[in-house]
């Protein structure tokens, strides 16, 4: 008898919370309209009811979850590399005029090249396909991180430097106690934007490169979520396409929410009062 109680409590919370209520109503409304559109033939995209059935089947299919695993792994590999390289690079450019003058022109020429344009070159350059995809993902996140770090560090008010200097701070103190915490909110923004781009890019990269036949689970459904979508399209399973799309939406949402939560933890002074 536990189930109904929990459900009732949840329903009550949804009704009591305006923000949550609006979200639930909007989502439900969207699904209803979609269902109507599909059933009346206005839209040829499979109806949500059909998608739900496929989703349910896939939940018990390990290869579907392996696609999740592969894409997630690629996103986090690329994203972490982007953070590890992008934060020092951005800080370096913000701190040193000479370094900025040297690196920024190259950076600005490379930046407009879409990560997807790198896919062929990346496949040629990197020894394994896994590395090629992770590299393209890295590029997607990297630019967002660097640009935000530079902007954030440059936006620190000169008064903070002056105050710190007159209280006797060394350059290292200024870096550690002013520049680093002053840039942290922008690092969080860069990370949140960056991981979103990483998801967008990894899916496309998997579609183009054919996913990756690595591993025993490889093959039809083992190439990551992007490959999963493409493969479903080729195989004519339209409900699976939609499941793949929704999966990516959920993955991106969870990643961003996690980063935002983490961001709030490291920037406690920005919490709403």
């Amino acid at each position, binding site marked *: 008898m536990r189930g109904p109680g929990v459900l009732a409590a949840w329903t009550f919370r949804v009704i009591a919370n305006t923000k949550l209520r609006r979200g639930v109503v909007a989502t439900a409304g969207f699904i209803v309209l979609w269902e109507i559109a599909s059933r009346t033939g206005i839209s040829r995209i499979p109806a949500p009811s059909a998608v739900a059935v496929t989703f349910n089947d896939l939940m018990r299919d390990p290869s579907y979850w392996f696609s999740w695993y592969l894409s997630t792994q690629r996103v986090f590999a690329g994203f972490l590399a982007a953070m590890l390289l992008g934060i020092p690079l951005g800080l370096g450019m913000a701190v040193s005029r000479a370094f900025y003058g040297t690196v920024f022109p190259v950076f600005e020429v490379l930046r407009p090249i879409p990560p997807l344009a790198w896919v062929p070159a990346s496949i040629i350059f990197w020894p394994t396909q896994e590395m090629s995809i992770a590299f393209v993902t890295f590029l997607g996140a990297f630019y967002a991180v660097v640009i935000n770090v530079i902007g954030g560090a440059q936006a620190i*008010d000169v*008064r*903070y430097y*002056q*105050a*710190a*200097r*007159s*209280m*006797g*701070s*060394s350059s290292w*103190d200024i870096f550690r*106690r*002013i520049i680093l*915490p*002053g840039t*942290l909110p922008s690092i969080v923004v860069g990370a949140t934007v960056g991981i979103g781009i990483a998801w967008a890019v990894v899916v496309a990269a998997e579609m183009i490169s054919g996913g990756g036949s690595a591993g025993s689970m490889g093959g039809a459904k083992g190439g990551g979520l992007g490959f999963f979508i493409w493969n479903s399209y080729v195989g004519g399973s339209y409900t699976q396409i939609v499941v793949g799309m929704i999966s990516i939406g959920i993955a991106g949402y969870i990643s961003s929410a996690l980063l935002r939560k983490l961001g709030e933890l490291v*920037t*406690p*002074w*920005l919490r709403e*009062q």
Partner: protein
Amino acid sequence: MKPEPVPSRERSLAETKAPPLRPDPRRRGEIRIADVVKIYGSEATGVRAVDNCTFDVPAGKITVVVGPSGCGKTTLLNAIAGFHSITSGTIHLDGALLCGPGRPKADPGPDRIVVFQNGALFPWKTIIENVAFGPMVQGRLNRKDAFEKARAMLAEAGLRNLESNYPGEISSGMRRRVEIARALMNDPKVLLLDEPYRALDSLTKSVMHEALLETFDRNQVTIFFITHDLEEAIFLGHRVVIMTTRPCRPKKILTVDIPQPRDYSVLTAKRFREYLDETIEAVHEEALKAFAAGERER
């Protein structure tokens, strides 16, 4: 005004454990400004912000500099603080050259602490971390001792129970008081205040003024205070330096002979009104000039 009574346990803690907050008797803080010129841009075509400016800031007194907005008061303060260079002239602090020939820009240092117009508490540090900042980066105190001293300093300023808040969580009036406490933690010779109460409403301002005078009484630190609020200038200042419009130089120096400690009843005293009238007259003339100059430029 006495600080409000402290619960006995807390008071004994502050008295026994904290390092002494009494001012260093050797501390003076006399500033001599002589023939200072500041030109922004090239000497021929640049903007002359400060011109042949000469006056003294006596040690252990409050000197208030008033003048029309944009007249170059802040330029002078930045030169003393070591944030900006001067073009010529000299500035001495207790006989030692801060900036002058061959040394256009003074080194910023904890003997001259600025309290900024819009405040410069670090938003990412809690109140106690902000106040303890100076002694910690200077390596004079370790974290524990710096916090202890900061706690005592905050308590003395009537700012208890704020220490774990962030600056964004307290009122702007509180922030200014915390910032002055942070400045005093460095045992400065001079406090440089750049229109610190400009953005505050007049009620908060009056509370701030009394708090500042109280702080001054306790610490006897030299104060260099910039404002364009004339009442504020006379209420706070032992000496009021009225500046000309740009380029700025002293037009008139008043010695305000109203005994300290002052409180707000002074505002209605006859002497106070006389000083105020004198100041208004001098400043108004300059304001008219500044206005006319502005019209011409347009």
